[in-house]
């Protein structure tokens, strides 16, 4: 309940600033899609029966979703925590530190689902989605959003300076999307990278997303969904505990 009231504050701000966040969260994946899709697409033959653009589209959907949750729960959270003291103001009201942090992550999750879905709509309009199974993708994006919100919040809870967020982006987010099977099939990667990808939430998400886009929903995909849930459930308690310690002393 408290977390929803915190979310309410964020939605109020979103109502005012959505144009700016849309710029950032929507334009960038579309630029990638255009550059890689047309540039690489001309060089690359069909991948597993898909055109390169069709292969790339689900990747850009999940990329947009990852960005939205990651940036909201890292830079966004850090600014509210450290500079704007928004959390301290909220904590003087009838909410707990846990409510405040859950509210932040809910917002990240929601933005993730929203902006991922916007890209999904664009690529669908471009004819890059083959199946109505893709209607389930927003749910997947919400799950993925929750996982990335928790991961970003975990890192943000540790740091004292906003510049340290660059490490998270460069050392975690970048490998997630470069090696997660967004731009090329993971089967081309060395075996140990393929194994490591089981810890990469984006890998699981893009596998499911691509299958749904092609209409190839299959029981085997539950493994990826299950691992996403497991990663999220494992990570979630840490940021709640760390942020509580940081806010209440």
């Amino acid at each position: 309940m408290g977390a929803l009231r915190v979310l309410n504050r964020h939605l109020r701000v979103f109502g005012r600033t959505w144009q700016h966040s849309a710029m950032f969260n929507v334009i960038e994946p579309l630029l990638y899609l255009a550059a890689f899709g047309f540039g690489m697409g001309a060089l690359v033959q069909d991948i597993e029966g898909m055109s390169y653009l069709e292969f790339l589209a689900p990747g850009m959907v999940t990329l947009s979703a990852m960005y939205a949750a990651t940036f909201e729960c890292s830079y966004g959270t850090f600014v509210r925590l450290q500079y704007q003291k928004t959390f301290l103001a909220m904590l003087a009201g009838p909410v707990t530190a846990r409510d405040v942090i859950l509210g932040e992550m809910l917002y990240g999750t929601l933005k993730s689902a929203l902006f991922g879905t916007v890209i999904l709509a664009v690529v669908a309009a471009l004819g890059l989605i083959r199946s109505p199974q893709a209607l389930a993708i927003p749910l997947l994006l919400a799950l993925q959003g929750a996982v990335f919100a928790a991961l970003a919040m975990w890192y943000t809870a540790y740091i004292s300076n906003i510049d340290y967020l660059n490490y998270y982006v460069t050392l975690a987010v970048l490998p997630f999307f470069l090696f997660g099977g967004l731009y090329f099939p993971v089967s081309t990667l060395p075996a140990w990278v393929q194994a490591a990808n089981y810890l990469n939430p984006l890998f699981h998400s893009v596998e499911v997303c691509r299958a749904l886009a092609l209409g190839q929903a299959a029981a085997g995909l539950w493994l990826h969904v299950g691992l996403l849930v497991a990663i999220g459930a494992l990570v979630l308690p840490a940021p709640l505990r760390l942020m509580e310690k940081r806010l209440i002393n």
Partner: protein
Amino acid sequence: MNNVVTAENLGKCYGDLRALKGVSFSIAEGECCGFLGHNGAGKSTTMRMIYGLSTVDEGRLTVLGRSVRLTPPDIKSLIGVVPQEDNLDPDLTVAENLEVYGGLFGLRRREAAERTRELLAFMGLEDKTRARVDELSGGLKRRLVIARALINRPRLVVLDEPTTGLDPQARHLVWQKLRTLKAEGVTLILTTHYMEEATQLCDRLLVMHEGTILAEGSPRQLIERHTLPWAIEVLVPLEQVPPGLNDKVTEAGGEVLQVVDGLFLYAADGEALWSRLGSWGLSPHACFLRPANLEDVFLKLTGKGEED
């Protein structure tokens, strides 16, 4: 219920620093109680414990009838908070700051909008409704923070240095609003390092110093108990003060207090002491006779003057 807040032996450590060293007090319903002390005395730490931003690690704290370790949401919903540092939401307008805060307390949108209008009028901010927070001056920001603290019609309002940094006019306006609240029966707890504020507003004062409470009472009581009724400020450099003056004042039944570079003399009969200063080699023109006030109490108890 008579006591809104009761503290018994509150202690708090930050690493090696003992910020509170066993603080006890109680605050009655409807009272305006002030915590007076220098920076670092432990005022904010005490306030944060009351309004649920800090845990009670040592001692006992009862807030609105409930013994708390960390003041829980249902108690916080009865409290209004003006934190030491303005933490208005810069992503929202003036009115939105109040409305969204009302939402945090579970007010419906219409209710929150209504209450916002009332409070903006009460604090004289009507013409700033749509302004952005960073367009407001320090004084207006402070008024908005106070308005925000009232959104839930609190029974208890905790104000941590409500007027620090405000110009005298803004300060008087805030005082006037706080008096109105008090007249409505709201319990006020405030911290300050302004003697005038403490004298003007508070029924009762707690003088804090380095994590302890040194004295307690109404401003009048504190003056009666802790200092002689007349003060003479010696307005010459210390090296020009005639030697042996201190002994002469003491022999005459007075008291001497030296604080950093300032010298203060206290007496039961100010005129009598004043009239003898000339014979002790101190020009009366360099001395200023006045009734003793809270600042004298504060100087005496803490050995330091008021801060700017």
